[in-house]
């Protein structure tokens, strides 16, 4: 039965996430925006609380690690069984996007540097085997994909991995590694054989203290300054061969799929981050607007209201579309439906709507919006990254177009 309201069972989860956002994130937002590269110690206490809540199930899926394809539904068993009964699942993917959005209403930079909730954790959750899950469980894992010469074009990765005995030896340079200096583990993408293209690209789990992986520098950024962004040089960096995620074979034609599958899970999460920032902006702007005496009437046509009211309605409508696209992608993952198309559509819409809404809210609030006395100007800086990482706007449009048009990456470049 078509219903786009949230189930009551998530009320508690969202309430918890809201408390975290209001009590821990917001009070520290400006502090760590100014003190870039300083570790937010307040988060250690929070991480312990969240782990406790995870164990009790109260905040299941509060972070990136919660976004995982249900292992039993992946082989089709439980999802098709529940489909046969005509029932629908509202599970960990939906819970994750809701809690991530709620925490990002507080602060997206702080969420990105939440201990134990890195994007590498998502990759491990999505493709690791049981032994790896055991070994890497409870650790904080960052993700290292981008290189100076390979951003969105991840098939052009130059970092290499060669097998020597029981170890892979990694060589190359990785940039833009979120929480790279703070995490326990880095999931590094590298090629087993650069002549074999994307099929040869595999991901390897590297311990942060591996002497072969050297921190080059931390970036100074437009926004999300609470979250550090590290650049690494890998020189003869040796990792046990058991640290390769997924199959070690180079399977032409499909090898890349395992790596890319991570994105189907993480893109809705980044979309959710954009929703959180956008909602923060809308709520703050609504308060300022009310002080200015602008009232929104949902019944009156926007064109018959003030420009400020009409603009607010327009932003709310785009927020609504982005939000529902994100919920759709997560719901499909919960129900074992392939969602590559919907995940990229959600990321594309939420990424651009988030930036657009944040910037318009700054303009609508004038000096109050632009000044550092409020957080609006910060949110507008933070929002921009969400239309860039985990695949830029343009990459999402490319993914969507290739799926809709049935084009290969060779045909539609």
């Amino acid at each position, binding site marked *: *039965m*078509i*219903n*786009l*309201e*949230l*189930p*009551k*069972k998530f009320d508690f989860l969202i309430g918890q996430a809201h408390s975290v956002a209001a009590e821990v994130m917001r009070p520290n937002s400006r502090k760590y925006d100014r003190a870039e590269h300083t570790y937010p110690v307040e988060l250690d206490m929070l991480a312990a609380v969240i782990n406790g809540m995870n164990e009790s199930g109260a905040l299941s899926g509060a972070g990136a690690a919660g976004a995982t394809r249900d292992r039993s539904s992946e082989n089709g068993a439980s999802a098709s069984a529940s489909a046969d009964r*005509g029932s*629908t699942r*509202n599970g960990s993917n*939906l819970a994750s996007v809701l809690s991530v959005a709620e925490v990002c209403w507080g602060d997206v930079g702080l969420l990105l540097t939440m201990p134990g909730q890195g994007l590498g954790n998502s990759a491990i959750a999505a493709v690791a085997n049981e032994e790896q899950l055991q070994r890497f469980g409870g650790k904080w894992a960052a993700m290292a994909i981008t290189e100076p010469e390979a951003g969105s074009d991840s098939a052009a990765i130059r970092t290499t991995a060669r097998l020597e005995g029981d170890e892979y030896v990694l060589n190359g340079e990785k940039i833009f590694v979120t929480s790279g200096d703070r995490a326990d583990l880095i999931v590094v993408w590298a090629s087993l054989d650069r002549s074999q293209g994307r099929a040869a690209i595999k991901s390897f789990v590297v311990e942060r203290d591996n002497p072969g992986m050297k921190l080059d520098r931390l970036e100074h950024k437009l926004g999300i300054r609470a979250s550090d962004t590290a650049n690494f040089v890998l020189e003869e960096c040796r990792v046990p061969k058991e640290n390769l995620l997924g199959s070690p074979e180079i399977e032409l034609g499909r090898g890349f799929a395992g790596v890319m599958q991570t994105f189907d899970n993480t893109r809705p999460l980044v979309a959710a981050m954009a929703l959180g920032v956008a909602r923060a902006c809308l709520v703050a702007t609504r308060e300022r607007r009310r002080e200015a005496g602008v009232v929104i009437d*949902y*019944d*009156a*046509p*926007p*064109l*018959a209201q003030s420009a400020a009211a009409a603009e607010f*309605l*327009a932003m*709310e*409508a*785009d927020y*609504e*579309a*982005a939000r*529902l*696209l994100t*919920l*759709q992608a997560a*719901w499909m993952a919960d129900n074992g439906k392939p969602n590559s198309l*919907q995940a990229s*559509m959600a990321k*594309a*819409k939420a990424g651009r709507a988030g930036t657009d809404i944040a910037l318009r809210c700054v303009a609508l609030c004038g000096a109050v919006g632009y000044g550092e006395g409020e957080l609006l100007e910060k949110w507008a800086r933070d929002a921009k990254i969400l239309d860039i990482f985990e695949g830029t706007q*343009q990459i*999402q*449009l*490319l993914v*969507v*177009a*290739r799926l*809709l*048009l*049935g*084009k290969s990456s060779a*045909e*539609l*470049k």
Partner: protein
Amino acid sequence: MPSQQQNLSERSMAIGLRALNRFAGSPVVDRLGLRDQAERFLYGASKTTVRTATSAGRKFAAAQKLTKPARQPTKASDLFDLTPTDEQSMLSESVRDFALEKLRPAALGADAACLAPPELLTQSNDLGLTMIGVPEELGGAVSERSAVTAVLMSEALARGDMGLAVACLAPAAVSTALSLWGDEDQQATYLPEFVGERIPAASLAVLEPRALFDPFRLETTVRRAPGGYVLSGVKALVPRASDGELFIVAAALEGRPALFIVEAGAGGIAVEPEPAMGIRAATTGRLTFEDVELPASALLGGADAKVYAECIQLGRIAWSALTVGTAQAVLDYVIPYVKERTAFGEPIANRQAVAFAVSNIAIELDGLRLATYRAASRADQGKSFAREAALARRLASVHGMSIGSDGVQLLGGHGYVKEHPVERWYRDLRATGVMEGGLLV
């Protein structure tokens, strides 16, 4: 669930057979047969302002007495779910087949003639469109109140053609309004006609001819008079105005908007053709009411402000649903076109400038679709939906139009000529930001 389906298919079949049986001798056919097609074309499409009185129409009278108004029950769900019920899937699939096989081929001619072919309207009646919103005890087809079902059917129809969809759905707006807000006498008088074999041409008239029109600030007025009311004013772009037998008219009563049931036979109603940029197959017309006397029983929904607001909101959801259907038609049309059309030695789909336009159509269409479903599902669950309806309308108005524009653009010069339907969809999709009323879900 099985009993409902059986119920529905039994009913549809019964109605279909009855319709076939009575069709030859039907007065509707006689009346339409009197009007030569060519004459209708000139009449409908010309810019002449010939005003005619509305047809005397049929006499509506209660056959049975109800003790209380019948309402469809509502149903709630606690899980986020995008899966339609089996019944909804079945209905929207059969409507989509009808839309693609019957409406689409007729659309070009109907657009030019400003007229929906009568046989198509009869066939669409057999689909049970006017019965969806009617309670079962009054002969309706679906046991629960479902704006979502109406949205799915509207979307499916508009995939064939928006103008013809409006023509088909206009009477359903009236039957749904009577089901939702009619008292026992109003329901007994009018609803049997909408579940019978000869569905009246009917329409919900809200829009007025002026810029920045606000349906909550009406210039059409009703004043109290001994024994009833007197109606005066002008309604614009009313679907199927010229053959309309029954109207529900939005008019201000003592400064507050309300709904009135107006039979076409009431004296003082003039109708003139008002063809527009698009949705021409809906034969839009302008209705002028000059001191039209209405009985006391004409007031629908007791001048309740909540009823009127709901009526406007449900109308906005309906137009959003049509936009979803037509925007889907655009997407379905441009995908094969850009893959087949070559330029500079390869399909134009291989160019990002073209491919990204297709991606954006799909993204905004899906967002609009979900927003429309959400507004309708909130209505079904008895939750407030003014905000959600406004947001769906905004998305439909802005993104629906840009999808229409991109549809033409992607075909280039070929999109600008009537050889391809994108030219018509461009004109049709502008209706969403303009229209109020006319349809209900």
